[in-house]
């Protein structure tokens, strides 16, 4: 079985390096085909491993070679394929394969086609390292690796100029790329601190050494580690207040948004919390866990509120990603790790589908993303309409599609834990989710054909692309039925993944709770239908209202960061350079040098060449020396 571990891991790397060889040459379709085939290979290997883990019930642990060893620290390149990582591997490689094939069509006219595939496969490789590593340092390799790939891919169209934030809230691809990288780095520092804490208290970074040692550590250490690692997770999973980069990341090509900024990379934070569940389930850190759940719930609502009025198709989906990540953290924080992982997988399928559908729309609309300029697209784009419809139903949580099962389980968990405030917010958010999802569907595909005013002639995507998307559509529809099988499989080994069951009381009420959520979801859809299905009616009064403006400006958070962090930083930096470093530190050095120089220059006047002057100076010197000698002898 070991060889499949290596095949699954390294096939994308081979694909990336192969594509990189052609990175500076004109487009060659076979690069896309070969990368996709290698990704498919990786998927098959992952699937074989998954079957193996299902059948035998135990994982595979391989150690490839040493990486860093110094002092007592010993970090190998080690990989573990257990229930958690194999689930992630299957999800990641499956979505990646679809996205790779999709990109052959989507990036068809791009002159940097080859480079794109190189980056995309490199991303998958990093992501696999992240999920498969058997230690925190290896996880950090993947963690930073996906960060760099994300930087490269958000900034893929680096040649675009910067625009004012009023015209384009993300300014430019290269700006958005830098923002994503830097915000993630802030979180990474916290994550490193978490790693250091664990190292100095357990003497290792291997999961199988650290986790069993946790019960012997004191509260302060556990709490610090839990908080630090979670701040790391907040960066990657774009949780408030480190969330602004995710919507700006939509500057990247749409397949990238689908793969990285929806299905896989942004779930890395959730994965970390799930992986470190032995830490987060310690009773000593229950407050941290509850904070995670609360923050997740808050972000779910907060992001959904901004999606309500957004006009940019991709940004709407980005907000919904944020919101769903919030749901996942809510589940993980409440201890329902397997439910969080289940929602992570289901979400990956329908969210990738939604983004790829958005890519088709963008392609058809010649890169126009404003849904106010669309409408009636279902007449020309039947396939895409169908897919986006399926994905939106799944996202809204309508049975029997995947989102219903996974999201409902999270909401039920909140009820089961007795955290009724969280439960209420999550239920309301479910209604909002349904509303904004269908607002976007109706405005894009139904109603009057507003795009005609802008002289756009939309057309459906290539057939092979639509076919490539079908596995995601199928999974978005049926994945929910496998909830019980998944539950049984993932909790085979309770040390890796603790079980979570609803209480008897919740179980009895489950039907009513489900119906309540459903009422909110259907209510949201109906509202969206009433308002938008028959065309767009704009209401100036609403659009100028305070709340609308607040949401439109993302609660003024980006503006706040620009005004109170970026600008002061630049100002202080310039001041330190020009006023402190040049005027104080350096000027002091020059001042001392000048003093000697001037002193020398002045005393030079003694050298007059006049003998009687010299005799005078000799007398002065003699007197001083005698004085010194006298004082010295008196003292002694």
């Amino acid at each position, binding site marked *: 079985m070991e060889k499949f571990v290596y095949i699954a891991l390294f096939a994308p790397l081979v694909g990336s390096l192969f594509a990189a060889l052609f990175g500076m040459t004109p487009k060659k379709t076979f690069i896309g085909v070969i990368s996709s085939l290698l990704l498919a290979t990786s998927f098959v290997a992952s699937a074989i491993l998954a079957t193996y883990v299902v059948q035998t019930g135990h994982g595979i642990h391989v150690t490839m070679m040493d990486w860093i060893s110094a*002092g007592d620290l010993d970090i190998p390149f080690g990989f573990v394929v257990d229930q958690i990582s194999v689930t992630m591997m299957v999800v990641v490689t499956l979505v990646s394969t679809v996205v790779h094939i999709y990109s052959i069509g989507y990036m068809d006219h791009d002159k940097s086609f080859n480079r794109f595939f190189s980056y995309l496969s490199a991303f998958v490789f990093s992501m696999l390292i992240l999920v498969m590593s058997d230690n925190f340092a290896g996880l950090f390799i993947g963690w930073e690796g996906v960060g760099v790939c994300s930087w490269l891919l958000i900034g893929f169209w680096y040649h675009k100029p910067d625009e004012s934030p009023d015209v384009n809230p993300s300014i430019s691809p290269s700006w958005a790329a830098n923002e994503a990288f830097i915000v993630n780095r802030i979180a990474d520092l916290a994550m490193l601190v978490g790693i250091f804490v664990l190292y100095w208290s357990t003497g290792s970074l291997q999961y199988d050494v650290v986790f069993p040692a946790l019960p012997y550590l004191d509260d302060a250490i556990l709490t610090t580690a839990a908080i630090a690692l979670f701040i790391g997770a907040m960066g990657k999973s774009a949780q408030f207040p480190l969330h602004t980069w995710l919507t700006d990341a939509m500057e990247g090509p749409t397949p990238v948004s689908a793969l990285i900024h929806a299905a896989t990379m942004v779930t890395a934070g959730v994965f970390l919390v799930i992986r470190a569940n032995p830490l987060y389930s310690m009773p000593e850190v229950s407050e941290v866990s509850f904070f995670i759940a609360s923050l997740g719930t808050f972000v779910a609502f907060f992001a959904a509120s901004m999606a309500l009025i957004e006009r940019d198709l991709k940004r709407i989906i980005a907000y919904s990603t944020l919101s769903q990540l919030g749901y996942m953290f809510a589940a993980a924080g409440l201890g329902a790790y397997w439910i969080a992982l289940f929602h992570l997988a289901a979400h990956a399928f329908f969210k990738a589908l939604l983004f790829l559908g958005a890519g088709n729309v963008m392609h058809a609309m010649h890169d126009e993303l404003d849904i106010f300029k669309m409408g009636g697209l279902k007449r020309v784009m039947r396939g895409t309409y169908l897919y986006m419809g399926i994905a939106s139903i799944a996202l809204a949580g309508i049975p029997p599609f995947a989102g219903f099962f996974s999201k409902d389980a999270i909401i039920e968990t909140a009820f089961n834990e007795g955290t009724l405030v969280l439960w209420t917010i999550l239920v309301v958010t479910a209604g909002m989710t349904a509303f904004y999802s269908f607002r976007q569907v109706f405005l894009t595909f139904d109603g009057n054909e507003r795009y005609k005013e802008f002289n756009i002639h939309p057309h459906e995507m290539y057939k092979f692309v639509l076919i490539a998307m079908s596995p995601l559509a199928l999974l978005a529809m049926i994945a929910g039925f496998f909830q019980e099988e998944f539950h049984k499989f993932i909790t085979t080994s309770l040390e890796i993944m603790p079980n979570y069951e609803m209480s008897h009381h919740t179980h009895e009420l489950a039907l009513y709770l489900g119906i309540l959520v459903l009422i909110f979801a259907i209510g949201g859809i109906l509202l969206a239908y009433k308002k938008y299905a028959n065309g767009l009616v704009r209401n100036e009064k609403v659009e100028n209202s305070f709340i609308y403006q607040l949401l439109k400006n993302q609660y003024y958070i980006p503006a706040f960061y620009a005004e109170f962090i970026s600008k002061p930083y630049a100002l202080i930096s310039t001041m330190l350079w020009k006023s402190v470093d040049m005027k104080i530190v350096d000027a002091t050095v020059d001042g001392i040098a000048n003093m000697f120089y001037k002193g020398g220059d002045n005393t030079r006047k003694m050298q007059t060449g006049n003998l009687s002057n010299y005799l005078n100076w000799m007398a002065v010197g003699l007197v001083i020396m005698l004085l010194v000698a006298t004082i010295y002898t008196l003292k002694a």
Partner: protein
Amino acid sequence: MDNILSVLIFFPAIAGLLGFVVDKSSARVYGISVATVELLLAIWLWMSFDGTNAGMQFIELIPLVPDFGINYYVGVDGISLFIVVMAALMTLLGMIGMSIEKDIKNMIISLLFLEMTMIGVFVALDAIVFYLFWELSLVPMLYIIGAWGGPLRIYASIKFFLYTFTGSLIMLVGLLFMAYLYQSVSGVWSFSITDWYALVLPVDYQIWLFLALFAGFAIKVPMFPFHTWLPYAHGQAPTIGSVILAAVLLKMGTYGFVRFSLPLFPDASVIMIPFITVIAVIMIIYTAMIAYAQEDIKQVIAYSSVSHMGVIVLGTFAMNAEGISGSIFLMLSHGIVSGALFMLVGVIYDRRGTKMMSEFGGLASVMPKYALIFGIMLMASVGLPLTIGFVGEFLVLLGFYSISPIATILAGTTIILGAVYMLRLYKRTFFGPITNEKNENLPDLNGRELTALVPLVAIVIWLGVYPKPVLEPIDTSVKALISFMHEKAQTAEAKETIILSKTIKEAK
């Protein structure tokens, strides 16, 4: 070859002397050949080095002034071995990448003399020999900056010379006093560092001596607030000067801490930790912020060097094997990466005659290979895992966490602030549309530049993925150093702070 170290030291110098008779047109080829042979010798040294032996190897001892115990005494251990190899490597690659035509012969000869002094400093085991090479290294550098530099070259080179020279004189006083103390205790004169190691000094003496040596090392590193000569030196120096200065000469200071301060004054070193920590943290954050404010690409790299040297200094005082090994590894990785970055700045300066960011923009589409290599070096500079930059930085921060979590977090901002100034630089230079039409037809890297840069890229990735061949010998020597310091320390505080690794504890 028992006298390999002498060969390594004096071969470039003798070849440099012979260089006077070489024809000007073949001076570059001559220089490259000599540097290649020197690098091969250095690699041979590495290959015959016993990585499991923590002590000094290839020792040579020739009495010079027996009455005062001054000997020509050289040797190499895991700590100095790789710095020697790196000095030889960077000299060779710097020469290959060099675009200077003017007075090329003088340049080659200066570089070969400089190579002698650099290698001499790192293998010297006698304080006087060490001091001689230390000071001699100033002369070729003074000439390189002063003769091939920019408009302010005279000011910059004299500032560089006098500033570091002043520090070195204080250091010399410290070294002489150390020898005097040794004589007063043992009755014989000795300048041998290994003899000095055996001397257990009272704590107050340790502190004074520590400070005297600190003056020499701190200016060389350069540590805040003694760093202001560096931006001038880099700003005015030709590319080759900056490459050697950043890659090798700055490491003399941090190497001095490891070779002298730690083992000679273990108690003082522990007492001085708070003082050093404050300076190092200021260095890291303050210069990273100044780097962000720069408009000149080369100044960004120059200030970033100071910031990274802060991390190295911090690691040196982590008092555990993780931190000190990391610090030495970071010396190497900073040498490789900053050397490469200075070469890269030189590439664009050769083409356009300017290093201002505002003159560029959109270079990624006209010079993709250049953008790629710059991108890789950028990532190594910000410490991306699987590049050479991560290993050292990670180990230093990890190691220092046991001394002070707060200081580690403050110092750890280097990974954020480093990304901030480097990404801003990259965005303004390489991304966006091409705004200046002079940049539209810039040629990409040529064969000469690629020959100099590709090996560095290979090393950056090789030692990022598999640092073991280098890290292991370093770690062996560092563990021995730590265990020695632990033995020698007198105060309880020092004994407690200097953390022995488990393997050594068990061996006892």
